[in-house]
């Protein structure tokens, strides 16, 4: 049960974002920019960063939701699964491996990101903006994961929920739905 009363038809993050919309607005705007805005990283690659951080923070809701989004964007589910288990053997570019490793360091602490980890990314062709965005996406998911679990919001266990949520994320992005969420009431 959540630590505070949240709308029961909106488990995970959505009920929290609806609970206080004035704090949700900049969080949504930042997420939309980072994960859906113009970038030399693909949307699928950026969802992999979100997933690997959520996985290491052991946030089941965010991990499952962003895995679903990454799988849809990549067109297969093997890559995301392998990224979670072992970045080195995952079928992603050498540059992406170095960025995912930076994201994992950020998950532990900002101080863990070493000049060597950054140099490795630059040697594989990562730009300053890609490194910036990787760090900020990883940091943002350290917020989300703590927000979701720190208030004990409900984590659905049925796979269909995440299939629907993954589609919603891919098709509508991270802005609040224009019509709100009343239609999700059963």
């Amino acid at each position, binding site marked *: 049960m959540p630590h*505070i009363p949240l709308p029961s038809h909106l488990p995970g993050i959505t009920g929290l974002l609806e609970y206080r919309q004035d704090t949700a607005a900049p969080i949504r705007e930042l997420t939309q920019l980072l994960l859906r805005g113009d970038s030399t990283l693909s949307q699928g690659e950026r969802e992999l960063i979100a997933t690997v951080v959520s996985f290491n923070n052991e946030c089941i809701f965010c991990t499952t939701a962003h895995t679903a989004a990454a799988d849809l964007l990549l067109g297969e589910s093997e890559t995301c699964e392998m990224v979670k288990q072992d970045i080195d053997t995952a079928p992603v570019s050498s540059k992406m491996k170095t960025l995912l490793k930076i994201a994992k360091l950020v998950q532990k602490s900002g101080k863990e990101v070493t000049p060597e980890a950054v140099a490795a990314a630059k040697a594989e062709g990562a730009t300053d903006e890609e490194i910036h965005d990787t760090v900020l996406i990883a940091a943002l998911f350290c917020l989300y994961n*703590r*927000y979701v679990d720190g208030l004990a919001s409900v984590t659905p266990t049925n796979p269909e929920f995440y299939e629907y949520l993954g589609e919603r994320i891919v098709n509508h992005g991270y802005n609040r739905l224009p019509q709100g969420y009343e239609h999700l009431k059963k």
Partner: protein
Amino acid sequence: MAHIALPNEELPGIVGLFGFKSETAKPLCALAEVLLRGPSSLTSGERELIASYVSNLNNCHFCHTSHGAAAMAHLSCDVNLLDDIKQDFIQIPVSPKLRTLLNIAAKVQKGGKHVSEEDVAAARAEGATDQEIHDTVLIAAAFCMFNRYVDGLGTWAPKENEAYREMGERMAFVGYNRY
């Protein structure tokens, strides 16, 4: 030197990063503004104390000291009293309710799952409302983001408290919306 080339290397902490990408700076500033200075039954001083406290647990000197200085400005205390935050508030007056909220914030810093029903019940017993518990968790979570952004890109930070006096006053009384 920061891990990426910033347009103005002289600007410390997150301020230097804002200059790198103003697009993301805007919602980051808006979030700080609403969380720390927006409508709440917690005072801005109390919320800045939570921000500074979490930042110290994350070992982020820039955020700890700048938000500590903002808290001191709100509380009309000298900037040097912010060192008391590191020793769990021996001198800064902290209400029993705020103490329970600081405990929740410390749990969030470790990981969301560390917040127990007992921690929340203890806050309620001291009169904390749902929204105060919500805001405490979100402020703590947001500073787990801000701290990682600042340190994950290797920004520099002035060491002495004195260097944060004006910055803290500006954060407290002018606010965070610069974009």
